[in-house]
């Protein structure tokens, strides 16, 4: 019906006041543009940090730990209950439990088809010494399933030269910590001699180099296939020291860890417990991003509010004429809300474009860090939801900024204006 006329009137008003309209819409442009840039950059950075910590941290980790013996002989004597007597005799040492996880095959088979689980990777940790002539370097050889580790825990991001597949294809291969390689002047293709704590000597062929960015890791850690690590540890095929779980939804981690401890009597730690401080960091960064963007948009909203208020004073006569010729109060209100939305639409879409452009510039700006050898530029998250959300938010803000002046306009009494001339 008459909506088209209302829109045309709104458009004509905005066009007639193009200078003010452009200034008002620049406010929105600025707010939305900043929102997009901040969100893209901050969440990109969050993603990077997630990559640093979360992506390579298992959501649930099952492991074995040496614990103090729970029952001392004295506690079994009911004449000396613990709440009345101080037990001085605590002499039973921790059990020399196997460092292998009990029933590891059972755990893996039991959970592989669980709907919550994205993947499970067992690991074998073997203490070794890297040997170079008479020098022995402390080391830790981790037996892994290279491709699964790459799929689930972004292992490949930290492999500098070579690839997880190279390791998989070479049963005698090793991906050597970059620090070790540097110290021992070794390169890809070289053999590295090692010796295990039992004195057994063996050699693995370097198929890749590994760099986590943490010197204390890179100077010690190396990766081999599971069988190679098991043999380095002097153990058989059932021997696993760690089982790493990756879940579809990280929220289930705590529940699952408790379940594993319950069902299998193993130690299981979830990511929330292991990285408690990390979650807070992420949510604070998000909070700051939202707070800054919303503040900017509210400021933009005030700009629109001001301009429309001014416009309504200038347009008193027009409003009176429109009403006299049969436009209702709600029609007039709609005209002014359309004006606000037009300004919002102009400013918002330019803001989205500007945000997109700036994000691209940032995305291409060089950013090199030891911690992430595969990252060469700043991380930027081009999530389309930021653009959808930003657009909606721009329109909502301008709607509210326009609503109050528009309501005022709708209440203007035409007779008062017409008589006043």
């Amino acid at each position: 019906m008459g909506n088209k006329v209302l829109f045309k009137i709104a458009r004509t008003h905005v066009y007639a006041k193009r200078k003010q309209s452009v200034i008002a819409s620049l406010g929105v442009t600025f707010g939305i543009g900043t929102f997009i840039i901040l969100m893209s950059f901050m969440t990109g950075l969050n993603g990077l940090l997630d990559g640093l910590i979360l992506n390579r941290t298992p959501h649930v980790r099952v492991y074995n730990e040496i614990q103090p013996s729970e029952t001392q002989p004295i506690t079994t004597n009911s004449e000396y209950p613990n709440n009345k007597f101080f037990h001085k005799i605590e002499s039973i040492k921790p059990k020399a439990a196997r460092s292998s996880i009990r029933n590891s095959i059972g755990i893996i088979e039991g959970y592989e088809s669980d709907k919550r689980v994205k993947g499970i990777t067992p690991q074998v940790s073997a203490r070794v010494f890297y040997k170079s002539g008479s020098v022995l370097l402390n080391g830790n050889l981790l037996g892994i399933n290279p491709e699964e580790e790459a799929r689930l825990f972004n292992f490949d991001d930290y492999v500098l030269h070579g690839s997880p597949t190279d390791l998989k294809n070479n049963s005698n291969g090793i991906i050597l910590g970059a620090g070790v390689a540097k110290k021992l002047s070794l390169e890809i293709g070289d053999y590295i001699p090692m010796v295990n704590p039992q004195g057994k000597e063996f050699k693995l062929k370097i198929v890749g180099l590994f760099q986590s960015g943490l010197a204390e890791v890179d100077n010690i850690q190396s990766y081999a296939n599971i069988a190679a690590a098991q043999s380095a540890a002097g153990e058989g095929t059932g021997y696993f020291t760690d089982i790493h779980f990756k879940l579809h939804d990280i929220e289930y981690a705590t529940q699952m860890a408790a379940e594993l401890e319950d069902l299998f009597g193993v130690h299981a730690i979830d990511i929330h417990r292991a990285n408690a401080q990390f979650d807070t960091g992420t949510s604070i960064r998000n909070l700051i991003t939202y707070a800054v963007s919303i503040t900017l948009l509210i400021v933009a909203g005030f700009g629109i509010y001001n301009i429309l208020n001014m416009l309504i004073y200038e347009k008193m006569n027009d409003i009176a004429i429109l009403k006299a010729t049969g436009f209702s109060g709600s029609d007039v209100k709609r005209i002014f809300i359309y004006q606000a939305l037009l300004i919002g639409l102009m400013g918002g879409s330019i803001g989205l474009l500007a945000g997109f452009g700036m994000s691209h510039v940032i995305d291409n700006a060089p950013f090199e860090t030891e911690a992430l050898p595969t990252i060469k530029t700043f991380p930027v998250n081009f999530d389309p939801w930021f653009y959808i959300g930003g657009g909606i938010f721009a329109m909502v803000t301008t709607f509210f900024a326009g609503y109050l002046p528009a309501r005022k306009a709708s209440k203007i009494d035409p007779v008062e204006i017409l008589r006043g001339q």
Partner: protein
Amino acid sequence: MIMAKEELLKVRELNKFFHDPTTIQVLRDINFDLYKGEYVSIMGKSGCGKSTLLYILSTMDTDYEGHIKLNGINLSQQSHNELARIRNEYIGFVFQFHYLLPEFSILENVMMPALKLGKYPRDQIEHKAIEKLKLLDIQELARKKATQVSGGQKQRVAIARALINEPLIIMGDEPTGNLDSKNADTVFHLFKEMIEEFNTTLLIVTHDEDFAKRTDRIITMSDGRIINL
């Protein structure tokens, strides 16, 4: 042949007060009827309440006491939105001072009430608007902005706008006040044609004796009262 007179407007015991700065009564006990196709003029001294009466009858001013019935609709019982619709469809109003929308062309100004009504497609409305401008001899101004024409021309544009929806009643507050006698004559005849073609009712406030004498009936006001029907 005597045609049955069809009632259009019925005004009963209408009183109007202004309260600022002190309460004064500007309309006192107004009673009158208008029939379809009637050509009526209102005369009276400046300040006697003619404009005030028209604002009330045109549904713009709702702050009054009394009863007004337009085409069978009791106006005092309608919501503001409903009154706007009635105004849009049934009433054409020509102001004492010619009010146009400055940012729109003459043609758009004339079309505006019809676009709001939305009864006809846009091209038909445009065609009609040009017809009305032709009748008032200002069709060559159609594309000009409202701020680029003279006072008398503006007044004629306002008249064309009042005609565009072919309303039941056209109310004019000195619609020929700014026109020379030749153009005033054109407007008089144009109104007459509206009556013949659409059975429109005309209620025109005027100070022009010649104009008033040629209408069917003169309502004379003095000091807020009707002294002669």
